[in-house]
């Protein structure tokens, strides 16, 4: 029996078996071909087995067989569409895991985030990735649209693809917006309150739209559940559908556009022909995608773990306390800016609708057949102008513009903001020497000569407090609301409990309107172990 064992035969039969199995798994490639693919060598068998995969495998049949060489030039696409999709997958995967730990109920939501961050290994990282990925996705989707606009790739047969793209931009913004509410902190609650409040301004059905979104006059249990279901079910489903259509158009119908110069430029025919050379999906495009994916993952991990990006989490949502500086998510600042300019219905609903309509209609409005930047100065001019307007409007949307806060409130808010850390909370606990410190106009060099380690941080915060108070008292050039006539100001630090100190800001001034002496007081409790976010 042993004698009849033919090692050679066995080896070749084993090889055959594995070879067959590999061909089945890869839907067409045998071992040798797989080896060639990984080395970047040309195919050996004929017909090219790498194309067969595209008909036998579902996942490959939705991918293109090849792209034309010039369309894959990096500076033409910047891989923006790829990364938009990449972040969609990142969001989907991290999102599904996050769903395990999250409960969409007001009394539990915030607690479940705290629990995720303090009790689940890699929990905080997961949330950071999901948040960073969401912000990145908005940026990449927007840049992708800009690129498509500037290279004139929305024209002719690609106008429907552009249409689905604009819809995807909308879906991305809404996905991000409703996800914003889920941590149920102050940041989330008020940003979404502002956002859904805009729906109320819609003509005819505004009240109903607002009720439908919030599930009540204010955002509560119903509103949170609605935002959650929109975020995890409806919008992702719509996104998957739209992405499929959008991508199918690109991969199976018209491909990625060539840079304009290869279509209409003044270059030799030879070069134009060369630009249309096929780059096969297997191995070149596939390897490139895998490479970009690993690069994307690496970039996410490095920006979070090495560069310390951290998803914001403010205090738990409190419908009774409107924060001083409320703002929408940054990608909606332009809308907030618009709202400051005029009527809520016109600026908040009608104008954005017109803008969305115009975006969709661009391929039909722009009848210029050329794609090159130089041959369409009007379109490019309008594009650049729109970006500038967007930036200016976004600036106007931040609290830096057009919001007047009374002097005392502003000064204290800047030193010890309601949310986040701020200069006061950055002072090391031991430097918060109990005592009453009055602003006298001269800034002391050292507030606590009795502490052997001194208190430079406390002194510098007090110096800043003094400087701003003194200016508000003395500078007649300031607008009335920023002045503190006859002002007096104190900083009081008290020992309150074990490892807990109470800091009081007290500011008194003569109010010119009511002719009375007014007092502003704010208490801040600081615990030794609070850490900074």
């Amino acid at each position, binding site marked *: 029996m042993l004698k009849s064992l033919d090692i050679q035969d066995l080896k070749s039969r084993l090889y055959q078996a594995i070879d067959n199995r590999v061909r089945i798994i890869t839907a067409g490639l045998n071992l040798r071909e797989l080896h060639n693919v*990984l*080395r*970047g060598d040309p195919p050996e068998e004929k017909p090219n087995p790498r194309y067969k995969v595209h008909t036998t495998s579902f996942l490959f049949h939705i991918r293109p067989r090849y792209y034309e060489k010039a369309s894959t030039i990096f500076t033409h696409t910047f891989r923006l569409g790829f990364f938009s999709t990449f972040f969609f997958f990142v969001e989907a995967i991290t999102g599904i895991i996050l769903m395990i730990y999250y409960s969409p109920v007001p*009394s539990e939501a*915030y*607690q479940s985030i*705290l629990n995720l*961050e*303090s*009790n689940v*290994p*890699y929990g*905080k*990282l997961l949330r950071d990735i999901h948040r960073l990925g969401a912000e990145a996705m908005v940026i990449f989707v927007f840049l992708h649209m800009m690129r498509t606009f500037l290279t004139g790739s929305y024209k002719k047969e690609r106008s429907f693809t552009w249409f689905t793209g604009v819809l995807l931009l909308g879906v991305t913004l809404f996905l991000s917006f409703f996800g914003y509410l889920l941590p149920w902190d102050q940041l989330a609650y008020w940003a979404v309150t502002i956002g859904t409040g805009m729906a109320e301004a819609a003509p005819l059905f505004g009240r109903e739209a607002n009720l439908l979104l919030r599930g009540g006059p204010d955002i509560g249990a119903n509103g949170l559940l609605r935002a959650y279901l929109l975020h995890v079910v409806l919008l992702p489903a719509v996104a998957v559908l739209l992405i499929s259509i959008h991508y199918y158009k690109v991969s199976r119908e018209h491909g990625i556009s060539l840079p304009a110069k290869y279509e209409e430029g003044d270059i030799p025919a030879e070069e134009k022909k060369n630009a249309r050379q096929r780059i096969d999906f297997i*191995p*070149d495009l596939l*390897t*490139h995608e*895998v*490479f970009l*994916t*690993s*690069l994307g*993952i*690496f970039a996410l*991990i*490095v920006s979070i*773990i*090495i560069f310390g990006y951290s998803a914001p989490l403010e*205090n*738990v949502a409190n419908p009774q306390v409107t924060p001083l500086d409320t703002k929408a998510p940054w990608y909606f600042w332009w809308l907030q800016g618009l709202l400051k300019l005029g009527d809520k219905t016109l600026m908040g609903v009608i104008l954005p609708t017109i803008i969305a309509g115009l975006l969709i209609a661009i391929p039909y409005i722009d009848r210029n057949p050329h794609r090159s930047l130089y041959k369409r100065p009007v379109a490019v001019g309008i594009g650049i102008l729109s970006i500038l307007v967007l930036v200016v409007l976004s600036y106007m949307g931040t609290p830096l513009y057009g919001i007047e806060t009374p002097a005392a409130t502003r000064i204290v808010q800047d030193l010890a903001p309601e949310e986040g850390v701020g200069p006061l909370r950055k002072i090391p606990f031991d430097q918060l020497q109990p005592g009453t410190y009055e602003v006298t106009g001269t800034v002391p060099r050292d507030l606590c000569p009795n502490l052997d380690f001194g208190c430079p941080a406390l002194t510098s915060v007090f110096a800043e407090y003094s400087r701003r108070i003194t200016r508000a008292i003395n500078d007649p050039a300031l607008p009335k609301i920023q002045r503190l006539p006859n002002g007096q100001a104190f900083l009081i630090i008290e020992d*309150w*409990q*074990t*490892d*807990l100190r*109470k800091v009081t800001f007290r500011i008194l001034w003569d109010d010119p309107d009511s002719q009375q002496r007014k007092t502003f007081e704010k*208490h801040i*409790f*600081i*615990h*030794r*172990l*609070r*850490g900074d976010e």
Partner: protein
Amino acid sequence: MSRVQLEVFFGTLFVLLSGGILLWYGLNEPKRMAEYELHQRAKSIEVGAELYDINCKGCHGPQGEGVAGLWPPLNDRHFFTNRLTEVGWSGTLEDYIISTVSGGRLVSTRPDRYPGQGRPVMPAWAERYGGPLRDDQIRNIAAFILNWADTAPDRSTQMAEMAGPPTGTDIKKALPEGDPTRGEGLANTKGCVVCHISAPTGPAWLATPEQPGIATRAEAILTDPNYTGNATSAVEYLHESIVLPNAYIVPGFQAGVMPANYGDTLTDQELADILAYLLTLK
């Protein structure tokens, strides 16, 4: 090397690097999570301190010292060592605090020392029982109160700490000169403000658009035919209302709500100060 090979090389490198960083991050996770929990506890105490300052200090005192005969101290050794046994509570002290704050106290557990025989003494604070606070806020308050555990002094001798002999219930008694500013301070520390200024549990002291202040109204009550007390002047009426609160009940209010033991807990001087303050509230 071809482009494909370069990409395979760098792709592998990125994956390995990412894996390495993740591994290192994972090794640090237990420490990070423990720290996070500490910070969370600290923040909970900070928020609790703020909430306590707004909601609780009126009765239980800014430092949890309470008011003898009215509202029990919380920053008290007894509270941390014996309270659970005293009321026969089976859970932790935190549970006890959360439960008490949430549902309020319907009947006093120590009727010999604090009021509340058969009527609510402490209101319910949880939203679901009709109060103003959410559950997480009540947890924060509990965290703040529990932070007194290590330093709480023994307050069992507090009753004896009075600055002089108690004033008693004689409303005709000659009192020393009162100081309204000191009286205003006493109104805070003795807890008067809670029912007479902050919440409308008792007759409001301050003037409103509908009615003048308590001093002016005291004059008017003397001429009211339904008045059942013995006072003959506004100051005597106010004196009587403090030490013998049930001598006359203002229409619209209930008898027995105001503690009747101020005669035992105030000194002559303190009473005079409070009266002087009340007389300024026209």
